[in-house]
């Protein structure tokens, strides 16, 4: 039985308040019919007595108090899923926008999902080769990991995400890959860039796109990542594919959340964001992972632009507390025309140590990576010292570190947008660069590793120079 009410008593921002409603459930979906017959989707945020507070995904423009009709649907927000989703483009609420007809659902799934039982999870320790040295070599991505890109406005995060989506592969065997792309409030150009990229490489066949553009209703964005992840869970855990989920831009998502929170007159936390931002983000990010008894996996790369490049802003800050590391883009490197401008020092992959080394990539990687971090950090310190004290104050070792830092940035960090380096290329390159420094400085490298790999690199190095 569907009940219809015409009892709206208030409209404020993205919310409407309705009276005399019977049997409304928390988190239930409602249809909202405008005088002209247009139907919008809403969700109940709070029920008290016979009052219900409803959030309207498409915004409240054009709604009036007298003639707006509300129909309770008696269920949560659901999307249709089927294997035919692959290759299709949908709106941020999961309606097709590519001109093709509705998909025939095999199942309807609630977009909120349910939390994965920690005891059912399998640990993400399968190395994913992205072909980008600074990620593979130093801040490795694992299958089932959630690794966000912290970017700033004007930095090439989209190009990096597209490159990862194109090149990502595992070292052993052929596996079925799919990409789920959730766009929240990005520009038409950005969305077009991804679509063109997916089409060009044929990746579109195994991709599902959920697109909410900058001029689409802002509140719809609150549903978009959940819709995308529900689709991803279906593809991963029921169709058994390895899904890479790209969510861009999480900052827009958080702003929509703040808008609703402000309209509800909630006590704000930092910078006006609601106090439950952490929990809310966690319900999105934590949907990445692997399950012990399923083949598929969900690997997530959320992208967010840090307002004013500030990492302590609530959005990157809370994200960093939930995700397993972060890839940070640096404006200074970008200015030097280094692509991808990933600063390896503040970047981090928490799952790296379990995904690399013997049996995973190559035995020397943990040591090499640590040594590169230490050496590059020292090189950057020397560079700062140089600015303050001048060149004459540098010792010989300092100069070697300086040289290392330069070459590291130009050869290791920098690579082409279509250059796909294997992990072995990346590691050999790292050894070659470490040869700039004297043996005593390479404290993180044990003798046996040095004997085995450095000697080879030294001769390569000599040949090149």
């Amino acid at each position, binding site marked *: 039985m569907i009940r219809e009410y015409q009892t709206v008593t208030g409209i404020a921002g993205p919310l409407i308040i309705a009276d005399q409603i019977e049997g409304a459930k*928390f988190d239930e979906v409602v249809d909202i019919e405008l005088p002209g017959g247009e139907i919008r989707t809403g969700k109940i*945020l709070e029920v008290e007595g016979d009052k219900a507070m409803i959030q309207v995904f498409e915004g409240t423009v054009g709604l009036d108090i007298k003639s707006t009709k509300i129909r309770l649907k008696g269920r949560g927000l659901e999307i249709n899923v089927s294997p035919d989703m692959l290759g299709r483009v949908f709106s941020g609420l999961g309606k097709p926008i590519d001109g093709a007809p509705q998909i025939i659902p095999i199942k309807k799934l609630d977009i909120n999902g349910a939390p994965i039982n920690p005891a059912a999870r399998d640990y993400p320790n399968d190395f994913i080769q992205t072909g980008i040295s600074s990620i593979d070599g130093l801040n490795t991505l694992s299958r089932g990991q959630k690794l966000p890109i912290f970017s700033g406005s004007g930095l090439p995060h989209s190009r990096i995400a597209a490159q990862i989506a194109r090149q990502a592969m595992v070292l052993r065997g052929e596996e079925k890959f799919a990409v789920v792309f959730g766009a929240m409030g990005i520009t038409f150009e950005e969305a077009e860039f991804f679509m063109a990229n997916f089409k060009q490489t044929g990746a579109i066949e195994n991709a599902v796109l959920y697109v909410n553009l900058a001029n689409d209703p802002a509140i719809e964005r609150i549903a978009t990542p959940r819709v995308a992840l529900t689709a991803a869970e279906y593809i991963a855990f029921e169709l058994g594919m390895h899904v890479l989920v790209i969510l861009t831009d999480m900052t827009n998502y958080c702003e929509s959340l703040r808008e609703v929170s402000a309209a509800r007159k909630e006590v704000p936390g930092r910078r006006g964001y609601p106090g439950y931002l952490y929990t809310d983000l966690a319900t999105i990010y934590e949907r990445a992972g692997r399950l012990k008894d399923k083949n598929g996996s969900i690997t997530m790369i959320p992208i967010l632009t840090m307002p004013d490049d500030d990492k302590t802003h609530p959005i990157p800050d809370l994200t960093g507390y939930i995700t397993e590391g972060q890839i940070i883009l640096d404006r200074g490197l970008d200015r030097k025309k280094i692509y991808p401008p990933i600063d390896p020092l503040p970047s981090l992959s928490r799952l790296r140590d379990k995904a690399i080394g013997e049996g995973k990539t190559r035995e020397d990687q943990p040591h090499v990576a640590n040594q590169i971090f230490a050496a590059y950090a020292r090189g950057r310190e020397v560079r700062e010292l140089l600015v303050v004290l001048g060149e004459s104050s540098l010792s010989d070792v300092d100069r070697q570190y300086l040289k290392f830092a330069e070459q590291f940035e130009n050869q290791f960090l920098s690579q082409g947008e279509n250059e796909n380096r294997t992990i072995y290329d990346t590691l050999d390159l790292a050894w070659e660069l470490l040869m700039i420094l004297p043996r005593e400085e390479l404290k993180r490298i044990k003798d046996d590793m040095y004997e085995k790999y450095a000697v080879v690199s030294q001769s390569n190095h000599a040949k090149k120079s």
Partner: protein
Amino acid sequence: MSTGKIIKVAGPLVVAEGVPNARMADVINVGAKGLIGEIIELKGDFASIQVYEETAGIGVGDPVVSTGRSLSVELGPGLLASIYDGIQRPLNELLKASGNFIERGISVNALDRKKKWDFVPKAKVGDKVATGDILGTVQETSLVEHRIMVPTGIKGTVEEIKKGSFTVTQPIAKISGKEIPMLQRWPVRKPRPFATKLPVTEPLVTGQRIIDTLFTIAKGGAACIPGPFGSGKTVVQHQLAKWADADVIIFIGCGERGNEMTDVLIEFPELKDPKTNKSLMERTVLIANTSNMPIAAREASIYTGSAIAEYYRDMGYNVSLSADSTSRWAEALREMSGRLEEMPGEEGYPAYLGTRLAGFYERAGYGVCLGSDQRKGSFTIIGSVSPPGGDLSEPVVQNTLRIAKVFWGLDYALAHKRHFPAINWLLSYSLYLNNLEDYFKNSVADDWSKLRNEAMRLLSEEAELEEIVRLVGLDALSGREQLIMFVTKSIREDFLYQSAFDPVDQYSTLKKQASLLRVIITLYKESLKALEAGVELEKLKELKVISQISRARLIPEEKAQEELAAIEEALKEEINILKGAV
């Protein structure tokens, strides 16, 4: 049975009217599915209920029933090696009941009702017993003997005591007409009492050099680890849970990552206790309420863990509890407080944040347990804090510092340089050092506190010298000052730096720690003498023994004493030769 009716639903908060026999903190079943909730406010006929499960689909008019019991844990054999959610539902059972994703309204017993345990009586018929006296034992795991104690409030004569295999609900004894099963219940929010609380006297040995040597935690103490994300809080917590010399470990993943809990779940059963060579899981209870699980249960998880910890402490064990992270717990408090429309304190946290934190950390302690045998037990709490933006002035850190006596301040700059554990030696402190001095002197090394103090002095001097170097360069320093810079580099890189992933380096015994530090301090003292005798600093920096020192932390434990003593001798000899050449 009469029921109450829901009049309001807002996220995890439900308000109901006319709940029969509603009492503060009683557990409530909400809606047709019977979701679990707890009363947190009563006003007239209205009860505010925080619900431990997702409330989607709950509406006005749905029924509410009180169970008449406050939120309690089940205590008895079978706790160890379990993994629970925040309200003590075993996750493995939930997995069987609802599959990979946690569905709602499932109720499962915390302790297996079918499993039989071999009960060995210790008390005899006719014994006069009171609360806390040991009735008998059960070998719960190969590492821990579970002592069945007389439950609170029971006193009298043992009329009957059994021997053999029993489930947790079958009676194993009869005391003054009352049948006693192994299973007991305890309300989580109420601390279990000590007979007498005592000052701490022993360190909790963790095998982590910077912690044991510089900022020691005592058995029965409370420590806090604040740090921004990516500074290695979780790795430190895991190291402590793995290596701390406690008998029982409670690890609470409170609002943290699901994959981290999986890591613990997969790794702990494989890790071996260094002393007994048994699986570490056999002494561990895990409580996992990951960030995407309902927040009200996150609030409860800390208390659930504490009650279990105190139960093992009462048996006379040393228990260590790690909570990662208390910030997420405080956020759960904040969210519920906001929904109750309470007046917010600092940064939106409720005004009672400080009291609640104090109440939690004060449950730690060392003392004489209830029971006539005067056994002693300890309960250590290690809480990590995740301050937003790494800002230590925020309310959760500040309120925690007022209570916790050990502070391990994690430093982003150190993590940046991949110096782990990234505990900043200038910021951190331990207020237990005086209490523990005798222990170290008698059990480890005579010169322990001298070595420690000398290392701390050098490190703080280095910080001052670094300022000067930054302004005018290294050449402006005197020979002695340059020597300090050289030696502190060794302290930092060869002593404080410790790899959590190297099989040898991840754990150092106290004796190895002392010897290693002694070598470095000797390097300083001897070099200083040589410098005064006219030896050039450059020559001292080129000593052959330096490279041995830099690899000394990797010497396996069984050879450590011998090799470190040899290094110390070689060092003195080499310096003497230099002095002779002047």
